[in-house]
């Protein structure tokens, strides 16, 4: 579904991503893990068209999207749930969700929007309960759900999520992760960027480890979980303190 080859991008003179090559197959949950500043968010922003790639190619459904503006990329079916939710606090929950339907309206597919809202309310009953409430009054977890719901309204083939668990309590975080799993079960494809490597690898099929803009490891999620470098660097396990038999 998404195939990236030798992608390089950055800000001004700063090169953040160095020859990143990766892919996501239809129906997969793929996670990118890495420390702060490794380039995870830059990668998602580059795929979304918010940052221009300097070189390399981004193929989405075999079409090169590397030079397309951000909105075209969303129209093609590649949506981002941004870091920090970025919802519109003074608008109601329903209005926020409707904003996500913009691509459908542009495609004169307005009739489907009502069904789509019902569908996302089916996934997030809490949002239906609060549809007339101002988004700014929602809890962190609900705001995250809203951000995901808004992205789903574009009927994306690929949903990219940037740190969806950030700032959430462990219990709410669990909810969000079970929603991600459910989205996949419904046929969605998910690219998940997370600092919480353990939780992300727990639900992902595969993962890539990004370190200073380079992919230093890739593989099945369970293999990354059992890799000792990953354990030391990202899972917070103090291996030296553990006594092994």
């Amino acid at each position, binding site marked *: 579904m998404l195939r990236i080859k030798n992608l390089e991008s950055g800000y001004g003179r700063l090169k953040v991503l160095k020859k990143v090559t990766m892919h996501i197959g239809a129906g997969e949950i793929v996670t990118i893990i890495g420390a702060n500043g490794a380039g995870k968010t830059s990668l998602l922003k580059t795929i979304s068209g918010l940052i221009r790639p300097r070189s390399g190619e981004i193929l989405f459904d075999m079409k090169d999207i590397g030079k397309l503006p951000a909105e075209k990329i969303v129209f093609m079916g590649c949506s981002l749930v941004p870091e920090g939710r970025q919802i519109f606090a003074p608008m109601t929950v329903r209005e926020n969700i409707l904003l996500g339907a913009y691509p459908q309206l542009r495609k004169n597919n307005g009739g489907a929007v009502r069904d789509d809202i019902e569908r996302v309310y089916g996934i997030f009953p809490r949002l239906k309960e609060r549809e007339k409430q101002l988004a700014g009054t929602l809890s962190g977890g609900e705001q995250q759900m809203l951000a995901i719901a808004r992205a789903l309204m574009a009927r994306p083939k690929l949903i990219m999520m940037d740190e969806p668990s950030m700032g959430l309590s462990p219990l709410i975080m669990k909810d969000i992760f079970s929603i991600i799993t459910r989205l996949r079960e419904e046929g969605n494809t998910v690219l998940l960027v997370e600092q919480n490597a353990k939780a992300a690898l727990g639900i992902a099929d595969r993962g*890539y480890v990004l*370190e200073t803009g380079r992919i230093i490891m890739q593989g099945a999620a369970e293999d990354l979980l059992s*890799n*000792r470098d990953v354990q030391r660097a990202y899972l917070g396990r103090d291996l030296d303190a553990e006594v092994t038999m």
Partner: protein
Amino acid sequence: MYWEPDKECLNRDELEQLQIERLQSTLNRVYAHVPFYRKKFDAMGVLPEDVGSLPDLARLPFTTKDDVRGNYPYGLFAVPLRDVVRIHASSGATGTAAVVGYTRNDIKTWSNLAARVLTAAGVTKDDVVQISFGYGLFTGGLGLHYGAERIGASVIPASSGNTARQVKIMKDFKTTALVCTPSYALLVVETMRKMGIPVSALSLRHGLFGAEPWSEEIRKELQDALGITATDNYGLSEILGPGVSGECLERDGLHISEDHFLVEVIDPDTLRPVAPGQKGELVITTLTKEAFPMIRYRTRDLACLLEGQCRCGRTGRRMCRVKGRTDEMVIIKGVKVYPSQVESLLSEIGGGEPRCQIVIDRKGAVDEVTVLVEADEPTSRGKDRRQGGMEEALRKRLTNELGISVDVKLVEKNSLPRSGDKAGRVVDNRRL
């Protein structure tokens, strides 16, 4: 039957994407964690970032057996030793072993790749697999053992040696798959004849033979004598051990696990790639190894890549059966012997630079090795006691160091070909 159909039958386009992803991450790791590679890359002015496609691999330096030995024992490991759960070693031309390590994930990968080879050869969970490779530092035994267990077969870790007992086990335990070197399989056949055990008394169906080159002629002989389908498989410790490639039941080339290894074929003299389909030296890069990644390892094994698709449906490219070596290494009873190793042992014992020749014969199914050594002084026909004592001392030492029994004969000075004459150091009279 496939072990991992989604991986063994991956389409070429997806496979190549996976290969470049894995190659780039392997390069990033070796550059960061293995000083040997960093120095070598820096010396050539090449960075991991310079490899943007599979053909770019050719810009990287080769790694040789000498590099591995020069970093004895752990210099090429890419992870700290505490992450290593297994260590193996293979013999080297001058005695220093090549030491290789495996993380827990590496062992898992290895088991799966060995399971692929076994499955391709027809082994299933219902088989009783007798592994008559040596267990120990040699990777053959444990590598295929783990693969067979992974499949769920019943594994008999018979190891090598005591052939009469092996035959009894094979008969009584109803072994259905035999895993060993082809030369050992020949010895099994001969031992059965001596013991008067007919093939009808056995339950054997499959034979997986490897760790040394063998011909189609031997294949036919083993298939007929044991009533089996005999398949070839290939691997080497520096890369993984058994599991790099193996034949399917079509027996038309060995399927390389290309999602884990990149294989190039080069001309050993010019070091340039040979034309497609031509024979040359196999050069292998690992794509998933954690503890002991290898970049462009020169195997010294001569083979070629086969064109076209196999009827079995696997998409991994096939290599032909190994056709020889670029060096003079010979495999005797499954043990690698280098003439240079014998020469250095002789000079250690007797001083100087004695000229020698290794003569290998096969009596029945057993390899017999005679090392001819030039004496300093004229040898007497009647064989005086001093000369006999010398031969005996050399025999003991060589047998001890090489790990196989050899006979030693002193010959007249200047009767052997000059050591500069490469082909002259080994005379292999075996029918391989």
